[in-house]
């Protein structure tokens, strides 16, 4: 799914594009973490079985890459309308209703919960930075505070994309059309 920016008044277009683009850019960038994730594990398998010398770092690298990958992709997935909905009833409603309900839920559900999550996640990460915390899941003992920072960063990215989604929902509520263009491959609901 892509946003049809043409429908918005000109002074909003820039902001809407910027919000969408930030999510898309960050999501497409962090999507590449899958490649080092594969490399780490493959290297570890070869090191373990062929060279009889397992690495110290593969275990920690794997979960750090994997955890950052899906979290930092959450805003991109939102921009692509990829977070799964049960559209049993939803798809039957007129678009105006869909837009109205979504707008209300963004304001009442989405932003308050994410703001609180950001606050607690920020505190969690900040404490880790202060202590210079390291992971003790292996003798490698890598620093863990950057990884813990992924959580508050994710919530910020989600809130920024949430603003864009709220505007789209308000538009749908007002004009009865979703400002979206279906570009066919990357809609998310294909699990």
């Amino acid at each position, binding site marked *: 799914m892509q946003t049809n920016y043409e429908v918005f008044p000109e002074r909003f277009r820039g902001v809407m594009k910027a919000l969408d683009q930030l999510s898309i850019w960050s999501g497409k960038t962090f999507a590449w973490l899958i490649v080092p994730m594969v490399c*780490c594990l493959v290297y570890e398998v070869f090191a373990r079985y062929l060279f009889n010398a397992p690495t110290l770092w593969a275990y920690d690298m794997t979960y750090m890459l994997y955890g950052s990958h899906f979290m930092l992709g959450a805003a991109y997935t939102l921009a692509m309308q990829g977070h799964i909905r049960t559209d049993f009833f939803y798809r039957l409603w007129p678009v105006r209703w869909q837009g109205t309900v979504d707008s209300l839920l963004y304001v009442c*559900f989405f932003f308050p919960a994410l703001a*609180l999550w950001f606050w607690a996640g920020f505190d969690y990460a900040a404490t880790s930075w202060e202590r210079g915390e390291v992971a003790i899941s292996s003798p490698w003992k890598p620093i863990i505070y950057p990884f813990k920072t992924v959580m508050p960063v994710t919530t910020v990215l989600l809130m920024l994309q949430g603003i864009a989604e709220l505007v789209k929902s308000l538009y749908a509520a007002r004009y009865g059309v979703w400002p979206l263009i279906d570009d066919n491959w990357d809609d998310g609901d294909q699990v």
Partner: protein
Amino acid sequence: MSPEILGLVSLGALFVGICVGFPISFTLMFLGVTFGYIGFGDTVFYLMVFQTFGVMREPLLAAVPLFLFMGFILEQAGLMDRLFTGFRMMLANVKGALYIAVLVTATLFAAATGIVGASVTILGVMAAPIMKKAGYDTRLSAGSIAAGGTLGMLIPPSIMLVVMGPVVGVPITELFAAAVIPGVVLATLYTIYAVTRSYLNPALGPALPIEERANSVGEIVKELLIGIVPLAVLIMSVLGSILAGLATPTDAAAMGALGAFVLSVAYRRLTWEGFKKAVFQTMIISSMILFLVATSNFYGAVFARLGSATMIAEALVALELAPLVLLIVVLALIFLLGWPLEWVPIVLVVLPILLPAVQSVGIDLVWFCTLVAVCLQTAWLSPPVALSAYYIKGVVPDWSLRDIYHGMMQFMVIQLIGLILLIIFPEIATWLPNLLFRS
């Protein structure tokens, strides 16, 4: 209001929230925060942080993006089309040939990936035009594509089983082993059904016209060696290494992704554009699933903390149902919920609530998980809320939804037969894991 009741109210709110159609993960996040705050104060915010970080740090779940990546690379490289073409050529002079080709391809595809939508879509794109041209029955064609496509969530590697393992507390490898035979049994039942009907009434699935057949035996052998064997070897070695205990699912998934990449490059089928799409599609789907895993874990922790899960389980136990009756009640509930809901919230939210009751009567958990998996797979074939139908309609617009539904219902009946067989003969599920892991 007692905390337990508060939890039940939150469950009601969740059901309404999910039906309203707001993204499920955000609904869970909000309800967890709200009801948790009312129930036990501001520590709920830290609970959200710890639960999420727990999911972020779970290397088992790293298998999810890796298996998705493997599947999307194979899809982007068009290796599945090639598989289908190969089988079609080989089977051309058999009645119902295309049904067999669809179902065998679907089974192999299921063993290569954990994604349902992808295989239904690809099979629809590849097989439907040929089936139409060859005069195949619309309903039976749509049904076999839909049913074959849903095997992906049962036959390992299945993303659903990767997610279910830690929820139930059973090793993923045992779940994989348990799902193999039921998957093959179902695929066989589908095939028997389609072929038998084609033999009884050749109009439903005639043999293919001459121009669709291979010109010589040599051509068939060549296609077999080049088009089918390498991919089958890759798929079998990924699965085999997990089942033989040589690799963890996460290790095997990474090796499988590498193998898919190497194979696609060797066939010169993988473009840079295709590779990028595979990377981005992996991101969207794995983020959707795993973010939902994180928020469901959080909601589940709030629900457990309020004591409602224990209450429901105790109420179920207090009914003092015979184990088999309890099992059927639980499965029926999951099947019914599978109608409006996706497997993700059912596995992550509903299953943990019912689990203690199942455990209390000593039902084998590996068998139970397999039954749940078949149940949820059936839900994909149960109209009117059956995503498979929309995928097929999306790629084959001139098949009517009515015919698609009709075809799917036929296979849903076969699913139910499979499910009953699995209840009567638990060995179908438990034999292989017992042999591999419990001897």
